[in-house]
């Protein structure tokens, strides 16, 4: 299961990088795909159970999803620093889950 979550996470990172490459423009398709992949990863993490480690991973992943949504649906300008920061957090998370 972790393998699957990791592969969704890696796919999310690839889409994420496409969104970042479009900076300063917002790439709707890249953001949408990132979100879809992250939600698939979340689904798999939830299925892992509710042990403290998984819960912490879930909380981190939810924070990343919030940041991606902020980039996709911003209030005013896209908050690039937070979106970029979340990308690093996701990379760490994928490594940790793997």
């Amino acid at each position: 299961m972790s393998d699957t979550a990791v592969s969704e996470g890696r796919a999310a990172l690839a889409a994420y990088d496409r969104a970042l490459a479009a900076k300063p423009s917002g790439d709707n398709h890249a953001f949408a795909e990132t979100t879809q992949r992250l939600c698939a990863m979340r689904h798999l993490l939830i299925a892992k159970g509710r042990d403290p480690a998984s819960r912490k991973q879930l909380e981190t992943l939810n924070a990343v999803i919030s940041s991606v949504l902020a980039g996709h649906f911003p209030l005013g300008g896209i908050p690039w620093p937070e979106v970029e920061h979340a990308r690093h957090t996701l990379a760490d998370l994928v490594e940790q889950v793997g």
Partner: protein
Amino acid sequence: MSLWDLANSDVVVVMGSNMAENHPIAFRFLVEAKRKGGTLIHVDPRFTRTSALADTHAPIRSGTDIAFLGGVIRYILEGDHWFRDFVLAYTNISHIIEDGYEDPERNEGVFSGFNPAQGNYNAATWQYKGKKVPSSLAQHRQAGAEGSEGDESMAQSRPPTDPTLQHPNCVYQILKRHYARYTPEMVESVTGCPKDVFLRVCEVLVQNSGRERTGAFCYAVGWTHHTTGVQIIRAASIVQGLLGNIGRPGGGIMALRGHISIQGSTDIPTLYNMLPTYLAQPHAFHHKHGTFAEYCETETPATGWWHNFPKYAVSLLKAWYGAGSTAENEWGYQFVPKLTGDVSQLPMTLAMSSGVVKGQFMIGQNPIVGAVNTQLVEEGFAKLEWMVVRDFAMTETANFWQKGNRVQRGTVRPEEIGTEVFFFPSALVGEKAGSVTNTSRLVQWHDAVLEAPGDSRSDLWFIYHLGRRLKELYADSDLPRDRAIQALTWEYPVTGEKQEPEAEAVLREVNGYTVADRKQISSYLHLKDDGSTACGGWMYCGVFPEDGHNQARSRKPDPPGGDGSHHGWAFAWPSNRRTLYNRASADPEGKPWSERKKMVWWDEEKGEWTGLDVPDFEKSKRPDYRPDWSTNPHGMDALSGADPFIMEADGNIQLFVPTGLKDGPLPTHYEPMESPVENLLYKQQSNPAAKTWPQPGNELNPPQDPRFPYVLTTFRLTELHCGGVISRVTPHTAELQPEAFVELPPELADELGVEHMGWATLSTLRGECEMRAMVTERLRPFMIGGKRIYQIGVPWVFGWEGYARGDIANVLLAITGDANTTIHTTKALTCNLRPGRRGGTRSGPDV
């Protein structure tokens, strides 16, 4: 203004509304205005019952309201028809704007500060010269980047002005340049309204301006449901500002609010971006929203009434968290969820289809009928794990998985949708107590008059018991994130076998009370920022001023010959005030502009403001008070005794808006996102700051696409209430409008071979739907830029449930958002039309 004050108007323009059909009770005050000699004008693409009762019907193509109103502004300015004494004293017409400001005149349709990569504006060049002006409305802030920071300059001096109006960057000169091209000929060419009809409207408006006469505008979602919706209303506010029609009897801009407490849902909001009564929602990414002290510092303007912000914010947190709200824990500020982005309905729908949302409650909503791009909404719903629907009869939302548009069209099979739907029966209005707030900010109470049958429960019952159970679930949690729900005050008395919460207890809490002895507070003037008062919504303070006195329940109209304010009828926030900014009904010296149009005036003997309404001003502030700028005055001290518009930082009507709008300081005509014609006024085709989210299933019809040559608008029907279900399941109302239809002009019907009452199919890139053809001369072809353009219209209130059925029109619509509010576009798009029926199957109760 109050609804009944419309009877005092000398002219009323209904625009963006079919008021006679959709607000029939309110419309009687227009009938009364006419009876008293007033003139009624209806500006609308369709000739409706409102038009039939008007003196003039001015037809315009959907989505061209700013071109029309811009033409009116030009007519007023070029003809020098503006109410000079009012405008010079009470508006920012003489204010000087920053040197760097550039108008769309010189920028091919965009203002200075536009960032094309991100599609948004930086408002730095729109400011008063040398000042930073805070926005008066939290909703319009670009949260995450903006607040009142840096606006101390407003407390140091008045903004620079040129009373001679000669300075090239004073607002008057900017207005004249900006609207110069909105000539009557251009108005005709863009809107399709014949020049002579347009000029007749202008003449009537300016004839009813000045000391002795006033006029009003009435609008509904025909103005708001555009990507330029806020700017359309802004255009009307410029017209009314120039004509002196704000804060005076019979003058104003009447927002005809929805029937189901829609005003209340923004006051005590279901909106995501505001705390109750228009306080800013904290933002996670705002660099100065991290603590309550920083939040208050950022959100409190230096000048004007909003300087009281901390009193309202602390009192709100005390009402929510009670003993869990202390100075030591920042009054519970960290319990409040922080925004990261736009989570209004449209982005939420899109995010839902990406799998973000696990479950959703549908209370008082039927989005499968009422939300745009219905098939995309269904796709999102199909990704939910669970959905709770509360309604009094089966709705299309509750059984979308079984009979939905995507099922009918073969896109998906019911067994492929995993969403678990919980359908709860709900009580009807007469079966529950509560308040409704709608047009005129009027809060009206209603009692339960009979018991809801069976398992039906009120929404209040559902929310209260859900909250109670959640508090029980989290009672023993030691996680920081659960502290908010643990701290939440949730003590409401319940009665009867069903344990129904006492609705008045909620209203008492919203009104506010003193914390020490739990005594009701009679006015927001008594709220404090030291934790001694609690208040769920400062503007509602006074609705329940003492125990046993629910002013919203009061039903005492003025007797014949009364002053017409009807202060004994319910409660209008704030302070039971019927007309906002009514200080403007008196001249700068405090005398009524005329005996005929008097409302509030200065009583020199008593040393206070008095009159026929509750004065919207500091009671004892003299008209000749002037701020002492050497003391850096803050709050109301920085506003003079002749600055009526106290919610603005400088107390003036903002003809030009330095801060607070995301798509420009002045209304500018852009074509709708979907249009069959090019923008004749600017190179910029559509609102560059509008929100669009192109993705599969949400494509926009390109401008001037020959596949979609017709302008489409949607509307409601007087016979079918709101989303329709409530009256579609009732035989008596269903038979009055038995099935969905499309209105089209005879000329188009002839061209296409569509027969009256025959079938016709409409299509966009989002989908198709079929309807009966209503061939009618109520719609006329327009000549736009020398090209014949057909306008058609469809009611959106049908679905597959009930006796009156038909395809859901919102299948045709795209998800786009107004730049300021993210509200969807339902009033101006393009489509195709052909005779015959669409493919696929149809759903109904018997399927």
